[in-house]
């Protein structure tokens, strides 16, 4: 029957409220865990059946062996008695033995089959004619109307034509066999029932958690990135998966937030210069009186658009740096060399501004990272220091107007600093200035996009380090603290829930 027809049937035959239950049940049976349970259960049941079967068979064999051995010994003894005392003695002994209660069977017959002594009444067909071992049914002599019993008997031909039959009732053996078989069946049944129930409950438990995860991921997919997968706290594989997926969500959410921030800022901060550009062109069209005016307007437009492109490039670079953890090429280089090169490049500019630019670097500082991005980041810091490094109040107090770039070792980290004696950044604003497009009030007069420090922070993160803004007493000391080994991918917590 195909699945479809079965479902049709089930909807027709089964009351409505059972439908969803059946569905839930079917879902349960489809879980990997339940299927695995079934497989193991089958294997275990077959194994148990084999074991019990072997046990039963072996027990039966052992009992049979024991019977044959004792019967053999008894026949040997009786044959001896016959040889010594003749048939009278044998009949006498059999008579006395047959009277004892128990499972032993005895019969002595003449050659024609007439019983002389013993406790066996009725025997199976042709048993007496067959010399040797036979399994047969019998009735006892003292209970001719009773039930038939099974017995294992041996018929022995005595020298003068008499026949001697000695045997044992097999009821004991059969009962033991039956008990073992019954026990085996019961235990297998119990194993199956318990196993199925266990599998069922385990599957239901796992299914519930997976369902909860599916539910959460659905809300996340629907756009609510703040959702997190439930963590049960049992530190099992599902928990570890949930913790790692949560860490991933955390990262995605951060990226999305950054993305949204950037688009908001682009909308806000690029709109202003674009509008200015538009207005300037419009104004030129309306009021220009000759080539000279047009030229001036066009040149201003070009300058404005160059500035826009520059801002745009800086934004792109930040976005790429923030997202490009895996694709950015990393190599070994000397950080001290980079710092010295920059100091040399910016020295004339600083001097022109009335600032002394000094490099404090002792020895090479090999590190692993992206040289170009790091150069750009440090250049941004030096550039900032030159722009904002002058402070009248500080100069009046005798603080030298200088910028110090320094590189130092700190264990497995490298500290690259650019320090000035300018007005500095108030502690409350330090976190703020790193954000995109943020410019402090006093810096609005200088040209710039407000993206410089954002890029520095992004480059620091890319290398697994950080940007620290400190007080230079007076002034600002901006430090990049980077691991020598370069990039360190964010670690995923193996067991503890993400912070």
């Amino acid at each position, binding site marked *: 029957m195909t699945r479809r027809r079965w479902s049709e049937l089930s909807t027709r035959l089964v009351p409505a409220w059972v439908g969803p239950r059946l569905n839930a049940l079917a879902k349960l049976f489809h879980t990997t865990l339940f299927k695995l349970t079934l497989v193991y259960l089958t294997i275990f049941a077959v194994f148990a059946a084999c074991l019990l079967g072997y046990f039963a068979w072996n027990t039966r064999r052992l009992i049979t062996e024991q019977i044959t051995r004792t019967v053999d010994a008894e026949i040997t003894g009786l044959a001896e008695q016959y040889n010594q005392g003749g048939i009278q003695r044998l009949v006498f002994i059999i008579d006395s033995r047959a009277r004892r209660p128990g499972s032993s069977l005895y019969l002595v017959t003449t050659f024609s089959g007439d019983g002389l002594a013993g406790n066996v009444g009725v025997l199976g067909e042709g048993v007496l004619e067959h010399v040797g071992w036979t399994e047969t049914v019998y009735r006892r002599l003292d209970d001719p109307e009773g039930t038939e019993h099974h017995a294992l008997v041996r018929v022995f031909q005595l020298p003068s034509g008499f026949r001697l039959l000695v045997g044992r009732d097999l009821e004991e053996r059969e009962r033991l066999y039956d008990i073992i078989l019954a026990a085996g069946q019961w235990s297998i049944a119990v194993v199956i029932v318990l196993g199925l129930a266990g599998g069922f409950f385990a599957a239901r438990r796992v299914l519930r958690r997976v369902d909860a995860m599916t539910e959460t991921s659905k809300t996340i997919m629907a756009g609510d990135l703040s959702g997190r997968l439930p963590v049960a706290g049992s530190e099992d594989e599902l928990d570890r998966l949930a913790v790692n997926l949560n860490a991933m969500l955390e990262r995605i959410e951060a990226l999305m937030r950054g993305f949204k921030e950037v688009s908001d800022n682009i909308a806000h901060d690029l709109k202003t210069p674009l509008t200015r550009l538009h207005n300037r062109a419009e104004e030129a069209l309306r009021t220009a009186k000759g080539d000279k005016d047009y030229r001036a307007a066009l*040149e201003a437009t*070009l300058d404005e658009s*160059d500035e826009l*492109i*520059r801002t745009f*490039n*800086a934004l*792109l*670079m930040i976005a*790429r740096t923030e997202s*490009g953890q895996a*694709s*950015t*090429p990393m190599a070994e280089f000397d950080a001290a060399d980079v710092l010295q*090169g920059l100091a*040399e*490049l*910016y020295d*004339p*500019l600083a001097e*022109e501004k009335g600032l002394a630019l000094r490099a404090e670097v002792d020895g090479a500082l090999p590190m692993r990272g*992206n040289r*170009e*991005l790091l*150069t*750009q980041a440090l*250049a*941004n810091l030096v*550039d900032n220091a*030159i*722009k904002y490094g002058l402070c009248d109040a500080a100069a009046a107090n005798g603080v030298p107007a200088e910028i110090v770039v320094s590189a130092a070792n700190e264990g497995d980290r490298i500290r690259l600093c650019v320090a000035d004696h300018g007005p500095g950044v108030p502690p409350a604003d330090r976190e703020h200035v790193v954000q995109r497009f943020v410019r402090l009030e006093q810096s609005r007069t200088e*040209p*710039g996009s407000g993206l*410089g420090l954002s890029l520095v922070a992004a480059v620091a993160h890319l290398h697994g380090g950080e940007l620290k803004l400190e007080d230079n007493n007076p002034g600002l000391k901006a430090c990049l603290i980077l691991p020598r080994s370069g990039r360190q991918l964010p670690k995923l917590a193996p067991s503890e829930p993400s912070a």
Partner: protein
Amino acid sequence: MRLLIVEDDRDAADYIARAFREVGHVADQAPDGEEGLALALDRQYDVLIVDRMLPKRDGLSVIGELRAKGVETPVLILSALGQVDDRVKGLRAGGDDYLPKPYSFSELLARVEVLARRRGGRGEETVYRVADLELDRLSHQVSRGKEEIVLQPREFRLLEYLMKHAGQVVTRTMLLENVWDYHFDPQTNVIDVHISRLRSKIDKGFSQPLLHTVRGAGYMIRDK
């Protein structure tokens, strides 16, 4: 100078071609990689301007194919991918220069002219001369007229680069790339300060200035 512009953006290609023609160059256009490759193999060009992302065949593969066939025409790669490693990839593929979009035409023109003149340029000369300014590349001596000029090592390299391309416009980015080996946007006009220092050493006190600022483009050393 004869140029081939391989660029699938019709507007951009037309704009560049028109601008090159205005300054007196001949510019052919190809809208995709296959046609660009066919033209470059068929005709003689001084410089090829190749966009990286092209239909039918991408820019880097066009360059690779040309180099494999022994065509050594200088290639300038245009690309919207401005990342550091993209430039390295472009140059490794056989490009001679790399310009990320968006670019200004003056920057493109300056770079193309430098590329075109590189073959048979002044690379081999040991002494560069512009008017009475002399730079000896072996002894690292610079003099103007009878006066010796003392330059810092970096100033020497700056002047060397400018004199190597005497008569050509050299942009700030070109100087930053070739003299300092930096490939980033310095935001402020760091180069200008270096130039004005150099200018004060070679032009100050002489009636004829040699180091000129080309507005909106860069700098140039020339005789007149």
